[in-house]
């Protein structure tokens, strides 16, 4: 048992375990000390000084996020001196910041804006020289605007500590300090794997996703004349979109989302969950082939484009292990422009595919040269959940009051297995459900394979016995965890048959394109991941069809169009390849 410590905060005595920071201690008695660089799920930086408090015996303020309480300590969180100091700090930050909140992407959800308001800053007193840097908006996925950066270092920390990419750092010193990739190269030429976690943790608009809303509005504006505009939504959208409209975390909103899309004027509304089922069909058969000795084990899943880039930059020697399956998004877009186009008798050139994704890296994936059909991009636009929310708001749709709608056919039905793709471990669970059926001839008695779900740690392992064969599997979310897992495999300590990796911590439900939670909740908060995952598992549990191979529309797709899993046609349309890329990442 750790020792307890007595201290006084604003005159109130409080007992806390040794090692508690002053910030956390204050929280316990209901005092929320303002903060900016602090992030509860990242290492301490303690550089913004916004969280200063006065401590008896010190003539300067101490940073409460980085100061541990000690016995007999007396703290003032709101003395006149401290209030003034905090305000000065925020005013100095603003002095060096553009004045364009009204036209800023983070307007209304910006920690700096919110903090200034709460500190009572109502005018700008300091008017000095402001730093000026070019905006890097050439990247397919991530836009960097250093003028909005307040140097809190959260992006540097998430990119290194959670993603293991270490793509960002501070450059230069003093007034001209700037955060960016090595040599401030454009994002797409850096080691960046486009996950967008820096976008999620940035308190301001210094990191954003590349905007695709304009092209979607444009496509919608000439619909029914020369374009058939199809939208398709990833599994994770329905678990988080409601948050952007004030619904509690993890409220499933599938039906309202479909209605909103219908009102916006899309000609057909499909569900990427359908192609999640399709991915499972292809990937499970790939696994069976490899179990039979064709191709290397372990097989690595390939749905997460951030992970795909990571493999290509950091572990290119493992490319032969990667499943050749396209991501569900690319399978879906391909089917829209082939299978669906054929059924509808529409020239694929006249179809415009909009994908709604929880993911920033999907924009990069859509732009990869492999993903073309007759010279056209397979997916024409990728909007994040955040961008969809902005579009719905700008349309004037009252989301909360929408009735439930239904996806269109034939690419709108999914089994419960497809639905859980959005949570880490979901692909594994779905794959095992189908592999079990293929190996034993019947479905598992209990389809809830909870041992691969995220409540069992950041890296999960499981063994399952199927028709006398033990299948060893592992799951990792967050690329730093993936590194740990892959290194263990490379050292030969671990032998697995199938490994699922998702770039984002928690899986797609916490992807780089998901709604910013309300200020005060952080994107890496495990409770947020849990609530969103619960939404998906509840959708799965409520379905009668819970295995990809039982999805009747999938069966029909194979019967009418593809033949069988891994057929020549399936290979041509649903599979892809990978290449080693530079700059090579540092492992």
């Amino acid at each position, binding site marked *: 048992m750790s020792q307890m410590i007595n201290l006084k905060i604003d005159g109130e005595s409080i007992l806390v375990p040794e090692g508690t920071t002053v910030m956390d201690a204050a929280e316990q008695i209901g005092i929320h000390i303002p903060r900016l660089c602090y992030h509860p799920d990242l290492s301490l930086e303690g550089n913004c000084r916004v969280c200063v408090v006065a401590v008896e015996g010190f003539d300067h303020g101490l940073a409460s996020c980085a100061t541990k309480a000690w016995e007999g300590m007396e703290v003032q969180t709101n003395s006149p001196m401290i209030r003034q100091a905090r305000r000065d700090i925020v005013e100095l930050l603003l002095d060096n910041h553009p004045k364009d909140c009204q036209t800023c992407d983070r307007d209304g959800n910006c920690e700096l804006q919110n903090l200034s308001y709460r500190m009572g800053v109502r005018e700008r007193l300091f008017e000095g020289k402001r730093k000026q840097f070019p905006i890097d908006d050439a990247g397919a996925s991530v836009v960097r605007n250093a003028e909005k950066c307040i140097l809190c270092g959260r992006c540097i920390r998430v990119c*290194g500590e959670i993603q293991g990419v270490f793509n960002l750092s*501070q450059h230069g010193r003093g007034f001209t300090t700037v955060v960016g990739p*090595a040599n401030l190269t454009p994002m797409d030429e850096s080691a960046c794997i486009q996950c967008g976690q820096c976008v999620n943790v940035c308190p301001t608009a210094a990191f954003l996703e590349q905007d695709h809303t304009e092209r979607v509005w444009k496509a919608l504006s000439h619909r029914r004349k020369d374009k058939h505009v199809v939208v398709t939504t990833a599994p994770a959208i329905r678990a988080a979109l409601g948050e952007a409209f004030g619904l509690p975390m993890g409220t499933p909103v599938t039906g309202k989302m479909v209605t909103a899309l219908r009102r916006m004027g899309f000609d057909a509304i499909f569900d990427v969950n359908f192609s999640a089922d399709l991915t499972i069909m292809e990937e499970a058969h790939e696994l069976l082939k490899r179990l039979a000795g064709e191709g*290397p084990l372990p097989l690595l899943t390939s749905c997460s484009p951030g992970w795909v880039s990571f493999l290509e930059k950091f572990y290119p020697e493992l490319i032969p*292990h990667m499943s050749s399956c396209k991501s569900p998004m690319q399978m879906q877009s391909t089917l829209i422009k082939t299978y669906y186009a054929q059924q509808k008798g529409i020239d694929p050139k006249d179809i415009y595919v909009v994908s709604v994704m929880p993911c920033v890296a999907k924009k990069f994936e859509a732009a990869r040269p492999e993903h073309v059909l007759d010279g056209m991009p397979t997916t024409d636009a990728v909007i994040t959940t955040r961008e969809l929310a902005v579009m719905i708001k700008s349309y004037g749709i009252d989301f909360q009051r929408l009735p439930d709608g239904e996806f269109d056919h034939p690419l709108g039905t999914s089994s419960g297995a497809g639905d859980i793709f959005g949570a880490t471990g979901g692909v594994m669970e779905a794959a095992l459900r189908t592999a079990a059926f293929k190996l034993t001839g019947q479905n598992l008695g209990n389809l809830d394979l909870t041992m691969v779900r995220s409540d069992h740690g950041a890296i999960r392992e499981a063994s399952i016995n199927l028709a006398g064969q033990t299948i060893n599997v592992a799951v990792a979310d967050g690329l730093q965890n993936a590194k740990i897992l892959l290194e263990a495999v490379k050292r030969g300590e671990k032998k697995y048959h199938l490994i699922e990796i998702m770039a984002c911590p928690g899986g797609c439900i916490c992807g780089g394109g998901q709604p910013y939670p309300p200020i005060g909740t952080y994107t890496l908060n495990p409770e947020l991941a849990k609530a969103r995952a619960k939404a998906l598992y509840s959708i799965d549990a409520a379905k009668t069809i819970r295995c990809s191979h039982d999805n009747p529309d999938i069966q029909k797709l194979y019967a009418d169009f593809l033949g069988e899993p891994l057929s020549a046609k399936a290979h041509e349309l649903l599979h892809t390849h990978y290449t*080693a890329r530079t*700059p090579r990442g540092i492992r």
Partner: protein
Amino acid sequence: MSDHCHGSTDNWPELERGYRAMLPEDVLAFIDASRGREHSESMLIATLHMVQGHFGHLGPGHLEAIAQLMQIPLAKVTGVATFYHYFRLQPRGKYLINVCLGTACYVKGAEKIAQKLRDELGIHFGETSKDGIFSLESTRCVGTCGLAPVVMIGDEVHGPLTPSQIPTLLEGYLARAAEDLAPAAASDSR
């Protein structure tokens, strides 16, 4: 891992060969000796010093080779290299201009001279002009306070100077640089 996983898809052997070719032997030996040990920031700084000592500056290729061979993220390496003033990220120009910012020169308006030089050359301290002729640096007292404000170009001292004299002064050196290049160009076209 299985036998299938090495070989053709791995670009490391080729990359490593390229990176090794970019650095001198003593640096490679230093890096090799430190392999497997914890990389402290001071080790990185020592390596940067060695490479700058050898080449006179740290180019993007050198930084990348250091990062890859030491297995330190490149962003960290360029972050360190841009933080410390003594690392030069561009090759030195033909003429090094040192503006004296010592007390005597400062009092006599050295900052105005410095500003004029920055404007004329379009560079900041620590940088090299696009044509590669001039590098701009500042220094503290060159011991000729009687001539303040003073600028050293190469090993020649100029002073006292006014900002309006700067363009003519630079033109003189540009002409010299052109003369030095002329015979070379003539022999090139032989």
